[in-house]
């Protein structure tokens, strides 16, 4: 819908003023306010024939960013959008929140349902699923440092990061963005819970102009103050310089020292589906079986006994599935795991997925109420939990630094990150993917040569069973859905072919 001020717009030509005399246009809010959301919910409810059976999902967001390549910023941008999904009889998405658009989104599917099924069945007595305010944790998701950072500051930072690479004769390409979302969910009695959230990320790739070396570093957080951009630039440059003119090694089984980002890239397939790249996708795809460690759906076999019909009894709950030093958990009030306190109407809660290597919790699809209540008894039964897709892996008291891991390795490889990891086989979670932006040979406790990239074919579950040393978990580059991962030393990791790409 074209907004009303449009009708009364000034003539298209002839009214331009010199730039110094341009009257200021008041800046509209960068994302929707709590009051606007409340009004939108009320409007949809009023329009719907069956308000208690109509779900509305609302999101609005702002992002401001700077991108650079070949040592120059290539674009500085600002982006805003709104998302409305009305799920009732069908699903309608729109980014317009005027009355006509919202009513169309509600009425249109209802009309089609009436055509096929006749008059609609009566509405439910109350909204299907709503939780009390007190069940939602107070998570760390807002940072003024992120929200108030000016574009000028971003450009200065970007140029500063570029300079270090340029001085060294290298080429830097990178991306720095900050943004904010207004998330919202409905509580009982038509109240809403408003959760504004900020997001920041910074990553860069430094390459040798001849194309013989490449280094990457990046990190994301809700809080810009938690991102040390200068350090990232130093790491990326160092990795680039040290990765030049790599030697080839034979593919085969190697002891690998994985930096935290590499650990994340490898194991993330256990948590996330490619479709869920941010909270909004997570929200939209809630009905899909994309939640891993999930007892009844696609990823089931990792945690259930292969070949058996899947019931809660046939899962590996209570059995050791990975190295006994490892814990996998999620705590919504961990500042480094700041994520939205709900998924749809469901509050997120602390979860211990794996305790000392033993599978202690499974995830379930929150939208399947029957399954949820019958099988798991959410939110009472601790065996089932909502997968926020934010997670932490740690080795408890066993903490070894990357340097110590290298020093204690007779022969192995140091991996910066993996790229293009894809699932090959569901039962074993066998994956394939490549190393990228920094791979080195370790010999007799020392890094001796940069190495040509390699493709691996390995299951993250196998790797997590071959752990020799665990480091301290740190935040990694995972915009929107934060994760804390340790560096790991893993033996017998299977590399299957050479990748000459740099």
């Amino acid at each position, binding site marked *: 819908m074209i907004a009303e001020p449009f009708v009364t717009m000034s003539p298209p030509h002839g009214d331009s003023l010199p730039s110094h005399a341009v009257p200021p246009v008041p800046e509209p809010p960068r994302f929707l306010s709590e009051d606007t959301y409340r009004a939108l919910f009320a409007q949809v409810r009023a329009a719907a024939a069956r308000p208690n059976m109509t779900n509305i999902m609302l999101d609005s967001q702002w992002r401001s960013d700077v991108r650079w390549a070949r040592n*120059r910023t290539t674009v500085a941008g600002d982006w805003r959008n709104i998302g409305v999904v009305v799920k009732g009889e069908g699903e309608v998405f729109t980014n317009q929140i005027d009355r006509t658009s919202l009513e169309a989104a509600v009425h249109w599917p209802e*009309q089609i349902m009436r055509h096929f099924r*006749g008059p609609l069945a009566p509405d439910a007595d109350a909204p299907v699923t709503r939780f009390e305010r007190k069940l939602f944790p107070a998570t760390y998701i807002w940072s003024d440092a992120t929200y108030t950072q000016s574009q000028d500051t971003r450009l200065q930072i970007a140029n500063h990061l570029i300079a270090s690479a340029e001085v060294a004769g290298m080429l830097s390409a990178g991306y720095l*963005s900050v943004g904010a979302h207004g998330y919202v969910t409905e509580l009982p009695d038509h109240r809403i819970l408003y959760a504004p959230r900020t997001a920041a990320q910074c990553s860069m790739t430094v390459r040798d102009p001849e194309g013989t070396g490449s280094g990457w570093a990046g990190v994301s957080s809700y809080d810009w103050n938690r991102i040390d951009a200068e350090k990232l630039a130093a790491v990326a440059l160092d990795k680039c310089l040290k990765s030049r003119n790599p030697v080839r090694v034979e593919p085969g089984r190697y002891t690998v020292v994985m930096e935290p980002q590499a650990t994340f890239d490898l194991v993330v397939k256990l948590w996330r589906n490619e479709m869920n790249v941010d909270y909004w996708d997570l929200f939209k795809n809630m009905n899909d079986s994309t939640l891993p460690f999930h007892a009844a759906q696609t990823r089931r076999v990792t945690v259930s006994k292969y070949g058996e019909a899947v019931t809660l009894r046939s899962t590996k709950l209570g059995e050791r599935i990975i190295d006994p030093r490892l814990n996998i958990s999620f705590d919504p009030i961990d500042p480094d795991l700041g994520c939205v306190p709900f998924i749809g109407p469901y509050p997120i809660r602390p979860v211990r997925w794996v305790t000392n290597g033993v599978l202690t919790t499974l995830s379930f699809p929150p939208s399947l109420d029957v399954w949820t209540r019958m099988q798991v008894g959410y939110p009472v039964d601790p065996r089932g939990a909502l997968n926020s897709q934010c997670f932490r892996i740690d080795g408890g008291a066993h903490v070894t630094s990357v340097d110590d891991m290298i020093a204690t390795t007779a022969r192995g490889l140091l991996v910066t990150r993996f790229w293009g990891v894809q699932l090959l086989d569901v039962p074993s979670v066998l994956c394939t993917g490549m190393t990228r932006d920094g791979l080195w040979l370790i010999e007799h406790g020392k890094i001796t040569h940069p190495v040509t990239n390699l*493709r691996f074919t390995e299951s993250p579950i196998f790797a997590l069973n071959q752990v020799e040393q665990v480091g301290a978990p740190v935040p990694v580059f995972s915009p929107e859905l934060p994760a804390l991962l340790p560096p790991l030393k893993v033996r017998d990791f299977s590399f299957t072919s050479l990748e000459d790409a740099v």
Partner: protein
Amino acid sequence: MQRREFVRASATASTGVALAFTTPRIRSSRRLTRSSSSAATTAATTALDPTSTTTLRDPRVRALALRTIDAARSAGAVYADVRLTNTMSRQMSNAPHAPQETANLGLSVRALVNGYWGWAATPTLSTDEAVRVARLATQYATLSASRGKPRAVDLGTIPVVHDGDWMTPVKVDPFTLDVVDVYDWLVGIDRHLHDIAASRGAPASSAWIPRQDRKEGIMVLRFEKQERVFASTDGNLLTQTIIVTTPNFKLPYRNAVSLAIPDFNTPVQAGWERVSETPLVDLFIKEMDKADAAPPPPPPKPAEVGRYDMVFSARAMAQFLSGTFGDATQLDRTLGYEANATGTSYLGPDPIKRLGGAVAAPLVTITADRSTPFGLATVKWDDEGVAPVDFPLVQQGMLMNYQTTREQAPWLAQWSQKQGQPVRSLGCAMAPTAQEITMQHTPNLMLHPGEGTADVETLIQDLEHGVLIDGMSLQMDFQCLDGYCNALQATEIRAGKRVATLMGAGMLLRADTFWKDIQALGGASSTSYLGGFQSGKGEPAQYTEYSIGAVPARIKQLALINPLRKAS
């Protein structure tokens, strides 16, 4: 007789009659034409279709675009363009009857100041907001220029079109169809085809149909429409409407085989006529005849690791072309502009040096275009107002060009002049919607057929011991050089005969050697034109779609692996 019963009864009639009456009618108004017949709907007979609440084909929108450009210019932009998009999609299937609709508006401004770009976007189409966005984009460009070292951008000049208008040549815009009629049509043809299949011995039960198909229906139709308005400080004012129709029609048949019409289930830039003018029933009967006459599929066996001569189907070749030259010849990518995102290119870091050199066997010619009918990247003007030209990427095995935009064209000036070509953008600027910034993306591609009349059947006859690859999932590395592919449909060939279905086959492919090792290509009649290929780049990532025309090919000595061996 109720209308639905009528449909059911008629669907079982003979082929010629059965579908004629169910042809969906054009909506006479924006109301559901049948809503008045149901007593329950009296309260809400004015329900608007969410996709028709706005149109950019409104004279006020053009005025808004000009006003926006004016604001950017006044704020100091040396060059600026504004894009507005109204993007709609509608998906329907024979079951369930829950519609999925999207309607998405956007306006964004790109401004250039002293070689630096600023960009800003909004979902709100109002004068105030457009002016704000135009000033913000210009302000960001000005700031970037003041904070950065000198950077030169030469956009050259392009012909100015003050009032351009273009639309996908469709006979019927699918968004004008009565939705209820389309549902009835889907249900009708599904029943009709099932009845024919049942009369030929297909199981009446659909119990074996994959879960996903049961959930989504097996007659799925998706329509997309995008209205685009483009204006720039050059004086261009262009309106275009792109319409894409994607049928996905499957028919469960005997032996748990799911039949589909070859090359039909693919997105094409066309209207409802793509479906209505295809003799679906006759073609499905032909597929049933083919399935009945086909020998039983060769027995399964695990793939044996080794090197084999292989035949790739047209679809597999199109996938490989997309993953290699499709991405690798993006000029910005070769130069490192995507280094922090999807990666660079094996044709870099000095792409000019590769021009004129051999990158494929002499029988390989690949062209790029944005003009092929049905092609998903086909337009009259790109997202910078440039009228695209058709151009060769690879001619008789030699690399002839890269994909370019206005900013990128001068980077190839030396080569263009040597070739006697003007230094001009090839028209590859695009963005999925106005909610994303314009970038260089892949246009439609065509792998030209070889001489003669070869097809998959004749190509496999020359295999003493080889493999036929029909379907695959391909993943190339971050330089489009080495690829790993899962061969979803691989068949072992001995002495020209299909002897086994290979299970768990994977392949390691290397772009440069693969293209150079092509020994034979299918003839013109073996061409498949397929849509749905994606060009993905940028931070945040954005994806545009294009189509590829390809022929099957025979390639010597490719490495076959079996990645699942260690898993068992």
